[in-house]
């Protein structure tokens, strides 16, 4: 009906012009929007990410020119050293997002993968096993050093694969279980593995993990002398005066790799299978998706990234210590995924960055700023002490008021609105009428599937 469409178009036009004339700000916004949509597709798609990337990569250069001390609220910008930790934790959150966000499996023991990764790095790139002497592409250690010294680049992959194997081993007996049982079992593994590394310093006299002292020092990454002489790449990070910057750029590279891999995975056959399971496990099984295998893959891949991140941060800290691996870390990572929006990569990256920053130094800084500027000397507060309480509040508030997360993935949001029935999506109670009289008459468009 061309006529009606014309009328509609005219109405739209007049409405738009009205809106544009209403204020200069709106007009500017409209122009911007129009300009944005006129840009070629690839620019629109990758532009913002590349812009953020450039800002991030150049961060160490302009950090010194940023104001320091008493910046409103945040007090000061994170140092390059803190930024490395922030990025690695974000990477772990992206990995956890595969398990929790894509596949809908609640994992409360992700810290186990972090621990396995870190200790794999400890075993494969340090002097822990004095009984042997094995070098393979190692940098920054003398040739007669005892222990296993494998190049960190290789160790990252090996540790990730070992962790993935660990993920499969943990997953096989537990993935049969549904929802909350899976959560508690993963929590169990998250508690067992740190305790194991803490205690395994004399297994029949064999020192596997060096107990509470942890494994230290762990080799640092590098490109070796020949590449250093020919191309100018750093021989070993630890020997460089700007080691932090090198670690920082490498961490960014790892994060980008993780993000790209996760996006590719999400759009792959496997990723679609994960999302199908998340939406409705029964239907997915009925459509021929092998549930166990698909879920195990999610576990293995989530573990893979956790392991790589753990190995990298162990190399960065030059050590793996059992006190690093507490249940709090698991919840903290889960908090990142929830805050960002389960399944939404960009959401998780943003939320991960914010929360990791809060954890590394943000909360302490905010506390300092508040104490300096707002609170009198008699009523100083110690914000960092309430760190996990604050995370708890974030979790609870998010679940109550914005369960889809800050930057929800479009698909997940729709699921939330339509009420999918994934492994954990079946509602606790389907009880309309008990507390809202007349709810039954309103006639929900979709009759909820009865529980069970």
């Amino acid at each position, binding site marked *: 009906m061309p006529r009606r469409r014309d009328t509609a178009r005219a109405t739209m036009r007049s409405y738009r012009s009205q809106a544009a004339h209403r204020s200069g700000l709106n007009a500017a916004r409209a122009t911007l929007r129009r300009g944005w949509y006129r840009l070629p597709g690839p620019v629109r798609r990758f532009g913002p990410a590349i812009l953020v990337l450039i800002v991030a990569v150049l961060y160490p250069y302009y950090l010194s020119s940023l104001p320091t001390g008493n910046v409103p609220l945040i007090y000061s910008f994170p140092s390059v050293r803190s930024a490395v930790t922030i990025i690695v934790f974000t990477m772990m959150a992206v990995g956890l997002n595969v398990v929790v966000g894509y596949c809908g499996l609640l994992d409360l023991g992700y810290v186990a993968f972090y621990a396995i990764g870190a200790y794999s790095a400890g075993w494969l790139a340090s002097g822990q096993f004095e009984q042997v002497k094995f070098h393979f592409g190692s940098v920054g250690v003398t040739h007669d050093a005892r222990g296993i010294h494998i190049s960190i680049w290789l160790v990252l992959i090996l540790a990730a694969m070992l962790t993935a194997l660990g993920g499969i081993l943990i997953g096989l007996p537990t993935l049969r279980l549904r929802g*909350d049982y899976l959560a508690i079992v993963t929590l*169990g593994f998250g508690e*067992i593995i740190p305790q194991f590394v803490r205690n395994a310093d004399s297994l029949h006299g064999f020192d596997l993990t060096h107990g509470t002292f942890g494994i230290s020092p762990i080799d640092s990454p590098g490109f070796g002398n020949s590449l250093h002489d020919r191309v100018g790449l750093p021989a070993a990070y630890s020997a460089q005066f700007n080691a932090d910057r090198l670690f920082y750029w490498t961490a960014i590279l790892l994060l980008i790799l993780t993000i790209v891999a996760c996006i590719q995975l999400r759009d792959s056959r496997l990723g679609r299978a994960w999302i199908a399971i998340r939406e409705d496990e029964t239907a997915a099984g009925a459509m021929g998706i092998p549930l166990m295998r698909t879920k195990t893959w999610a576990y293995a891949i989530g573990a893979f990234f956790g392991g790589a991140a753990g190995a990298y941060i162990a190399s960065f800290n030059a050590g793996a210590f059992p006190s690093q691996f507490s249940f709090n870390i698991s919840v903290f990572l889960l908090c990142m995924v929830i805050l960002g929006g389960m399944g939404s990569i960009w959401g998780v990256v943003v939320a991960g960055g914010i929360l990791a920053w809060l954890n590394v130094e943000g909360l302490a800084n905010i506390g300092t700023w508040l104490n300096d500027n707002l609170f009198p000397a008699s009523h100083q507060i110690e914000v960092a002490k309430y760190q996990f309480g604050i995370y708890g509040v974030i979790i609870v508030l998010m679940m109550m008021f914005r369960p889809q997360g800050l930057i929800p993935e479009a698909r997940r949001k729709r699921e939330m609105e339509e009420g999918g029935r994934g492994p954990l999506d079946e509602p606790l109670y389907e009880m309309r009428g008990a507390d809202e009289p007349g709810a039954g008459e309103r006639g929900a468009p979709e009759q909820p599937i009865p529980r069970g």
Partner: protein
Amino acid sequence: MTEEGGDTLLRRFSIPRIAVEARTEEPSPRARGRRRQRPAALSIIGLGFVALLFVWLGYCLVNNPNDFFTIFLIGLTQGSVYALVALGYTLVYGILQLINFAHGDVFALTGLFMASLIANRFHLDETSGAGVILLGLAAVFLIAMVFGAAVNASIELLAYRRLRNAPRLAVLITAVGMSFIIQNISLAVFDVNFRSIPQLISERDVFVIGGVHYTWEALFVILVTLPVLLVLSYVVRSTRHGKAMRATAQDPEASAMMGINVNRTISFTFLLAGGLAGIGAVLFLVEFNVRYDTGFELGLIAFTAAVLGGIGNLLGAVLGSLIIGMIQAFNEGPFIFAPGSDWTRSIVFGILIAILVFRPEGLLGERTPEGA
């Protein structure tokens, strides 16, 4: 399968008697109908583990009977404290199918609160007269119950109630969040130090048989726990509220139709669970000291106990707690091959995982929660 035939038939054709079961991978409880045949190899491995355990226990008994019985009594005492906490998990799980992560932290908060109350308000200590101590303890138990119940019920009111129609994952995550919040409240109010109460119950022996000592303290724990369990059993089985609870656990929709106020029943369950945790906290204080994070680990152990017994099953929770208490005591005891207290957590969680793999429905694997 030794499944009674008539019951299976009934289950197949009537309203599903769901309420509580270990959620394994079957498409849905209704479609399950018959019990899944467990792989034989798995059961053999599982039984093998249990057999090994018994061989080890028998060896300990023969080798060192005195230690064995001493440790047995310690395990009994510890198990009865766990039972009070595990019952809270099982009650809540039975009615909401929610692992109430915050439960352990309610326990710790109550413990801390009572410790400071006993020290600062009641001024009870070793020198007080026996009558004063008994009266004081009675008051302490009462206050602990009320406090625990109030905290637990307000968690439900503030957080879980709003999520009644939300996905299960959302509620579970909220429970983790609440656990952190309660733990942080404990930290903020009572600081990081361990708190304990003075030696109110004498540590002298009730009896000594051979080398086996049994202290008044241990007896006291049992003397408090037993009546509490009996009262609980009566409440759940015979009172109006208890019946409403069981009905709601079975089928919330149907019980709402029958005129049961489901929300109030759920609140009542949380009150009950909190009260039990309060009593447990005081008993725990009699023997140990409490810190803000004590509740987390103890809660996990108690939850394991509840799963071991068959979650949703009250008797199962008590049985599971006693077993877990024994396991912990024997693990930390002076026996050959006992791994020691460094490994307690790993062993408890190992058991949890083993149960979920080998027998997800728990020891008293009933499908209904009203087994008390």
